[in-house]
C-alpha cells in the first residue's frame, strides 16, 4: 500500500505536465484535468481505507533511509485531509469547467488555468503527506506560486491590486518559515519531522519557545489567524469565483494543518496553549465583527472564513485529544461548507450581476435553486442543528468544557456568540439578496436592461448577468450534498476524527511511523 503515497503527488503533477502540453486543445485539457482529479479522489479514498484499517504508511523516497532521505508519511489526519481536498478540488474544477463553457474562456483562460490548478493540487498534496520540514516548505512554495498565478488570472486592475498584497504577505510568511527551518536545523541538526520531534525535548526551554513562536507565526500568516489575517479579505474576493472557492476552502486549512502538526508532534507541551487560546478568541470575534460590517457577499464570506479559523485554533489550543479530534472534524466540515458558499456566491454573481447585497434583490423569486444552494450551507456555517457546523461546534465546546479552565469557558461563550454573529451576517445576506423583492432595491433597473449594460469590472454599476451552465449548478449541488453527508454520517466521521486525534496524542506514535526501529538520538 505504500505505493499509493507518492501517487497522490505524482498524479496531479503528471496531469499538469500533460495539460500544459495540450495547451491548444482546451477540450482535451479539461478532460485530462478532470480525470487526474478523479484518480486523485480514488487515491484519497483508498489511502483513507488503508490507513484507517492497516495503520499509517511511510515511504522513503528513492530508497534513502529516514533521516538522510525524504520521507512521505500518511497517517489518519493526512489521509482525511487528502480525501477532503481531492473532493473539493474536483468539485471546484467542474465548476470552473462549467464556467469556462458558459463564458467562452474569458474569466478562466483554460490554457494556463488547468495546469496551474493541477500544480496547486500537487502543492497541497505535498504539504499533507510530507514528513520533513523542508519538504513541507517546498510543498507550500509549489502551492503558493500556483496560487499567485490563479489569483491574478487575467491581470485586470482589481486582481493585480489584490494579488500584490497577497503575494507580498505570502512571501514574507515563506521567508519566516525558511528562517525557522534554518534555526531548527542549527539547533537540532535535522529537518526530518520525526527526528526533530525526538530531539526537541533535549533543547533548553527558551530555545524551544523561540522556535515554536517562529513556526507558529509563519503558519499563522498562512492560516489567517488574527492579527495576521488582514490580507485575506483584501485579496480573496477579487479572484475568479472558482479560484476564490478553492482558496477559501483549502489554503488556510493547510496552515491550520501545519499548526496541528507543530502542536502535536514537535511541541506537545502546553507552554503556548493559553496564548493560542487568546489568539483563537480574537480571531473568532474580530472576523465575525468584520463580516457584520461588510456589504459584499464575497467579503462577508471571507470574514466568516477568518472567524471560523478561530474555532479550529481553539480545538488545537486545548491540547487534549478531544480538542484535536473536534478541530479535525471542524476542518473537514469547514473546507466543504466554505467552498460551497463561495461557489453559491459565484452563482449569485452570475444570476444577479453583482455580489453587493445593497444592489441585488429578489433572487428567491428569480433563481430559487441558487437560493436553496446558498441557504443550506449558510445555515450549516451558522451552526444550526442538526447540520455539521452544529456538531463540530458542539464537539469543540465539549472538549473545551472537559479541559475546564476559565479561559476555555470564556472561549465557549465567545464561540457561541460568534456563531450567532455569523448567522446574523448570513441571514442579512439572505434577507436582502434573496428575500427582498427586486423592486425594493434602490436604483433597480429591469432585468432586461441589466443584461444589456456592459460594465463587468465596475464597482458602481451592476454588470451584465451571464448564463449559468448546468455543470456549474451540478457541481454546487454536489458540494451541498457532501455537506449534508457530513451531517448524516457524522457518527462514523467523528469516530474517524477521534482515531486520527489519538494518533496525534504525543509525538511517540509519529516517530514510530518513521523510525520503527527507534530513532538515533
Amino acid at each position, binding site marked *: 500500500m505504500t505505493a499509493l503515497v507518492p501517487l497522490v503527488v505524482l498524479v496531479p503533477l503528471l496531469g499538469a505536465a500533460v495539460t500544459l502540453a495540450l495547451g491548444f486543445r482546451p477540450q482535451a485539457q479539461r478532460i485530462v484535468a478532470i480525470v487526474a482529479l478523479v484518480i486523485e479522489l480514488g487515491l484519497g479514498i483508498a489511502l483513507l481505507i488503508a490507513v484507517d484499517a492497516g495503520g499509517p504508511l511511510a515511504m522513503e523516497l528513492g530508497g534513502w533511509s529516514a533521516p538522510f532521505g525524504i520521507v512521505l508519511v500518511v497517517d489518519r489526519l493526512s489521509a482525511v485531509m487528502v480525501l477532503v481536498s481531492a473532493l473539493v478540488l474536483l468539485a471546484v474544477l467542474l465548476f470552473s469547467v462549467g464556467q469556462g463553457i458558459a463564458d467562452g474562456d474569458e474569466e478562466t483562460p483554460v490554457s494556463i488555468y488547468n495546469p496551474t490548478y493541477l500544480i496547486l493540487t500537487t502543492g497541497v498534496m505535498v504539504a499533507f503527506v510530507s514528513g520533513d520540514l523542508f519538504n513541507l516548505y517546498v510543498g507550500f512554495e509549489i502551492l503558493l*506560486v500556483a496560487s499567485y498565478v490563479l489569483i491574478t488570472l487575467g*491581470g485586470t486592475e482589481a486582481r*493585480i491590486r489584490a494579488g*500584490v498584497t497577497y503575494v507580498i504577505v505570502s512571501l514574507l510568511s515563506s521567508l519566516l518559515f525558511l528562517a525557522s*527551518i534554518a534555526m531548527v536545523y542549527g539547533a537540532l541538526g535535522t*529537518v526530518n519531522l520525526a527526528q526533530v520531534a525526538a530531539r526537541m525535548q533535549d533543547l533548553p526551554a527558551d530555545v524551544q519557545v523561540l522556535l515554536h513562536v517562529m513556526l507558529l507565526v509563519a503558519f499563522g500568516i498562512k492560516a489567517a489567524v488574527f492579527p495576521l489575517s488582514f490580507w485575506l479579505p483584501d485579496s480573496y474576493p477579487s479572484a475568479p469565483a472558482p479560484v476564490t472557492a478553492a482558496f477559501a476552502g483549502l489554503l488556510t486549512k493547510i496552515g491550520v494543518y501545519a499548526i496541528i502538526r507543530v502542536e502535536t508532534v514537535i511541541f506537545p507541551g502546553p507552554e503556548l496553549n493559553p496564548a493560542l487560546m487568546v489568539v483563537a478568541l480574537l480571531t473568532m470575534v474580530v472576523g465575525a465583527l468584520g463580516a457584520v460590517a461588510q456589504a459584499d457577499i464575497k467579503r462577508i464570506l471571507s470574514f466568516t472564513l477568518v472567524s471560523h479559523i478561530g474555532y479550529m485554533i481553539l480545538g488545537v489550543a486545548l491540547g487534549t485529544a478531544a480538542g484535536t479530534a473536534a478541530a479535525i472534524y471542524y476542518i473537514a466540515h469547514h473546507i466543504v461548507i466554505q467552498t460551497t458558499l463561495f461557489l453559491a456566491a459565484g452563482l449569485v454573481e452570475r444570476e444577479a450581476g453583482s455580489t453587493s447585497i*445593497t444592489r441585488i434583490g429578489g433572487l428567491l423569486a428569480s433563481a430559487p435553486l441558487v437560493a436553496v444552494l446558498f441557504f443550506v450551507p449558510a445555515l450549516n456555517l451558522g451552526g444550526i442543528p442538526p447540520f455539521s457546523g452544529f456538531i463540530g461546534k458542539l464537539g469543540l465546546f465539549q472538549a473545551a468544557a472537559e479541559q475546564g479552565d476559565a479561559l476555555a469557558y470564556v472561549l465557549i461563550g465567545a464561540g457561541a456568540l460568534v456563531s450567532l454573529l455569523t448567522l446574523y451576517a448570513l441571514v442579512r445576506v439572505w434577507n436582502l439578496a434573496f428575500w427582498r423583492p427586486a423592486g425594493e432595491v434602490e436604483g433597480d433597473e429591469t432585468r432586461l436592461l441589466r443584461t444589456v449594460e456592459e460594465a463587468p469590472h465596475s464597482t458602481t454599476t451592476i454588470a451584465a448577468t451571464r448564463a449559468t451552465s448546468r455543470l456549474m449548478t451540478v457541481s454546487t449541488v454536489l458540494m451541498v450534498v457532501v455537506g449534508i453527508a457530513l451531517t448524516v454520517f457524522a457518527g462514523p466521521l467523528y469516530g474517524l476524527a477521534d482515531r486520527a486525534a489519538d494518533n496525534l496524542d504525543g509525538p511517540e506514535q509519529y516517530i514510530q511511523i518513521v523510525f520503527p526501529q527507534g530513532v538515533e538520538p
Partner: protein
Amino acid sequence: MSISLILVITMGALFAAGVYMLLERSLTRVVLGFLLLGNAVNLLLLIMAGEAGIAPIVEEGVADDAYTDPLPQALILTAIVITFAVSAFLLALIYRSWRLANADDVSDDADDVALREGAVEMPVEETAPDAEDTEFPTDDARSRA
C-alpha cells in the same frame, strides 16, 4: 559550534535593510527588500552549517568533523531557485500594476476605504409591520388615532 562573526553581522544588516525596505509603500523597494531578506535567510542557513571545512567527499583517514555540512547548501540551492522564480513573477506583477494603474505603490483596498468613509450605506430591513398585516396597533394606526 563556532561561527564567523562577519557572516552574522552581514546577515543582521541584510535582515534589517530587508525589513526596512519591505515596509515601504513603493513596490520597487518592496521587491528589493524581498531580495535582501531572501539572501539574509540563505545566509542564516549557511551559518547554521557551522564551521567551514573541506568539501564533503568522503576520503580515507579524514576525521568526520573536517567536512563541511552539505545539507544546508542543498537547502540554500533549493531556496535560491524558489526565490529566483518568485522574484521574476513579482517583477512581472509590479510591471503590470504600473502599466494598469500607473502607480508603483501598494494601493488601499477600495471596499475598505468606502466602508471607512461611510460611503456604503447598509439598507435597514423593515421591522415595523404593515397595518393591514397585523392586529397589533402599528405606528401608523397610533398616529392616526
